[in-house]
């Protein structure tokens, strides 16, 4: 009996090991078989050439969000057109980054394509985990799908390293805008805010005349996700966390002026829990009509204009605001798609990247109301875009100005971005909560950010 049981266990274990071994070897063979000759340089021009990688697989790692919706909806088109099977995995941003970093560390190349946030480009560049795309753009542009000539330099710049090499194709890009309740501004004869001083002035008037509405709302929590608000606001005053040489420049007169105004806005004119507000709670307040002004990414304008989810739809306007230095306040965001250096299917991945960013897909996204913040400038001239965005004409009219205002100089382009952003934002958050003064916050933040590089 015991011998029989033992034999059974040994058999099961052996079979398991055998099957695992088979599985691994099958995958390797598949990887090798799908890995095409990548050295041929030829311009892809016809639909037939889209079939060059037919029968292969692509593993795509994406971040949750509307950028991914297009792939969910139109992946079948790509598969039919190319014969390439897409295996898409979608995660929140931290999980996505964890998965990609672990995959790169193990050098497995499980993922061919990864969604990239522009602030991680220096980190990925330092480790050579992303494939530079310049060679593909120069040698293998797809005539039907390539959109690079129609994306502005400022947007492409977000995904370039210091040597100017491009590491991702931009899928979405947003700039900083002040979104304001036009109905309330008109009611109290407040002119469109054009400067940071105008914002403070309007906040003061609104606090007196509209006691049921908070004059201002923005991100103020202590995570790196809120860094974009405070650092972007600071750029309007000519202040930034690090200068071009990488020197920490937190505790400067310009930063003090910027953060004094910002903390005043958040401390006196925003809700009491401003120091705990991330994008979710902050935007929810604005959508519910409980705040008059919101300094945010331009992408939020279309969300606030959606009548199904926003009570302020039809009552808002937006404006690019400038500060004492003449710089526009920033809330730069860019998401792109890059090719993993460890991918065994780089050419087919490049084909996918071009398809994803093609004008045809962009038009479909607009047509299906998925999103309007598309980096390809040709989209603005299409009838679909004009028709679909007629309700947010105030926004699309200003879109060229908004996109031109993007200035990546203020952003700390360092592989240690997450640490730097958190070190700075934690202190600003405490100042907003009234725990420490702006002077104390900046002195402490200067030390904390310097400590990151020690």
């Amino acid at each position, binding site marked *: 009996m*015991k*011998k029989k049981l*033992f034999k059974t*266990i040994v058999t099961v274990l052996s079979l398991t090991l055998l099957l695992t071994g088979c599985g691994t070897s099958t995958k390797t063979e598949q990887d090798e078989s799908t890995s095409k000759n990548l050295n041929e340089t030829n311009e892809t021009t016809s639909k037939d050439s889209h079939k060059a990688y037919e029968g292969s697989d692509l593993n795509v790692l994406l971040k949750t969000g509307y950028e991914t919706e297009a792939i969910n909806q139109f992946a079948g088109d790509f598969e039919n057109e190319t014969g390439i099977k897409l295996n898409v995995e979608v995660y929140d941003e*931290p999980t996505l980054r*964890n998965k990609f*970093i*672990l995959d790169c*560390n193990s050098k497995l190349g499980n993922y061919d394509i990864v969604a990239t946030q522009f602030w991680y480009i220096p*980190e990925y560049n*330092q*480790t*050579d985990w992303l494939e530079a795309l310049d060679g593909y753009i120069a040698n293998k542009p797809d005539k039907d799908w390539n959109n690079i000539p129609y994306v502005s330099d400022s947007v492409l710049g977000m995904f370039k390293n210091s040597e100017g090499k491009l590491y991702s194709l931009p899928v979405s890009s947003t700039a900083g805008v002040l979104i304001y309740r036009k109905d309330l501004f008109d009611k109290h004869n407040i002119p469109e805010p054009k400067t940071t001083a105008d914002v403070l002035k309007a906040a003061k008037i609104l606090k007196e005349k509209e006691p049921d509405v*908070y004059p201002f709302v923005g991100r*103020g*929590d*202590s*995570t*790196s996700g809120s860094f974009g608000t405070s650092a972007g606001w600071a750029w309007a005053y000519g202040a930034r966390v690090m200068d071009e040489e990488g020197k920490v420049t937190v505790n400067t007169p310009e930063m003090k002026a910027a953060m004094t105004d910002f903390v005043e806005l958040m401390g006196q004119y925003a*809700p*009491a*829990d*401003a*120091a*705990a*507000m*991330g994008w979710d*709670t902050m935007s*929810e*307040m604005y959508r*519910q009509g*409980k705040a008059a002004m919101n300094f945010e990414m331009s992408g939020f304008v279309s969300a606030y204009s959606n009548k199904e989810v926003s009570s302020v739809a039809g009552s808002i306007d937006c404006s690019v605001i400038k500060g004492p230095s003449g710089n526009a306040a920033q809330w730069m965001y860019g998401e792109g798609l890059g090719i993993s250096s460890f991918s065994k299917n780089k050419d087919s991945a490049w084909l996918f990247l071009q398809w994803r960013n093609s004008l045809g897909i962009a038009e479909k996204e607009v047509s299906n109301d998925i999103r309007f913040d598309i980096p390809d400038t040709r989209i603005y001239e299409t009838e679909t875009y004009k028709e679909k965005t007629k309700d947010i004409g105030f926004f699309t009219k200003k879109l060229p100005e908004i996109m031109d205002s993007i200035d990546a100089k203020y952003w700390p382009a360092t*592989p*240690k971005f*997450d*640490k730097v952003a*958190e070190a700075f934002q*934690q*202190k600003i*958050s*405490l100042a*907003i*909560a009234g*725990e420490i003064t702006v002077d104390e916050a900046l002195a402490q933040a200067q030390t904390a950010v310097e400590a990151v590089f020690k």
Partner: protein
Amino acid sequence: MSEKIFMRLMTLPALLVFLFLGVYPTVEALYNSLTDYRLTETAPRQFVFLKNYIQMFTTLRFWEALGRTLLFVLFSVLLTYCIGLLIAFVLNKAPKLRNFFRILFLVPMIIAPTITALNFKFMYNNNFGIFNYILNKVGIQSIDFLGNPDISLMSALLVDIWQGIPLAMLILLAGLESQPRSLYEAAMLDGANSLKCFRHVTMPLLRNFSVIVIVLRTMDSLKVYEIIQLLTGGGPGSSSETLNIYISKVGFNWFDMGYASSLGIFTLYFVMFITSRIIKATGIFGTKEVA
């Protein structure tokens, strides 16, 4: 095959699982904690001996996180036990309602901490959260549960207590139900009132159950991560940053695996030390120290 060999072979699968999932990661973490291993740098890891531990013990943020963790555990265990005992006591006295409320009180325990935290985040909201709505309705000013650095950790603590009470209540109720009535009758005959019965009969009989609740809740509270991460992210500033949040930031935001491993190793021994002290002091597993 001899009986002895067969028995040893039967333990092999469990032993392998323990070695791969218990021993190997701990040894690997111990080794990493002595290196400058960073996942976002391609340079090979260097042996730095105790540098990470020195960094840990000389970093104020670590001590602050440790202090908050201890505070969190102390209040969580204490309040969970007291409230759980109170509810168990009430249910024990009301046998008709017992089954209904026993199931009702299980609800917090079966909801995933992530869902709980996300729901509480909105309920705590200063502007449209239900708690402040109720407070305002009864004439009390809104409380900034998550944005005030002085109370943000306490707000997270309340959620942990809410989730922990059912377990405490269930164990203590089982203890109360198992107590023989004869002891109470004897005590009453000797002139003991309800308070004396509670102190001299109920509590001593509940001792083993209480220790189980305290040990389990201590370990649970030491592990709390999702609730704090989703409610406050450790903020404002670092006012609600506990050891687990700190480790997670170092390990999975900054990918400084060497330093994160040293924090992890410290936490492992810290948890083991606290738990073993509780077990030894109470003698729950027959290990009571002889004075």
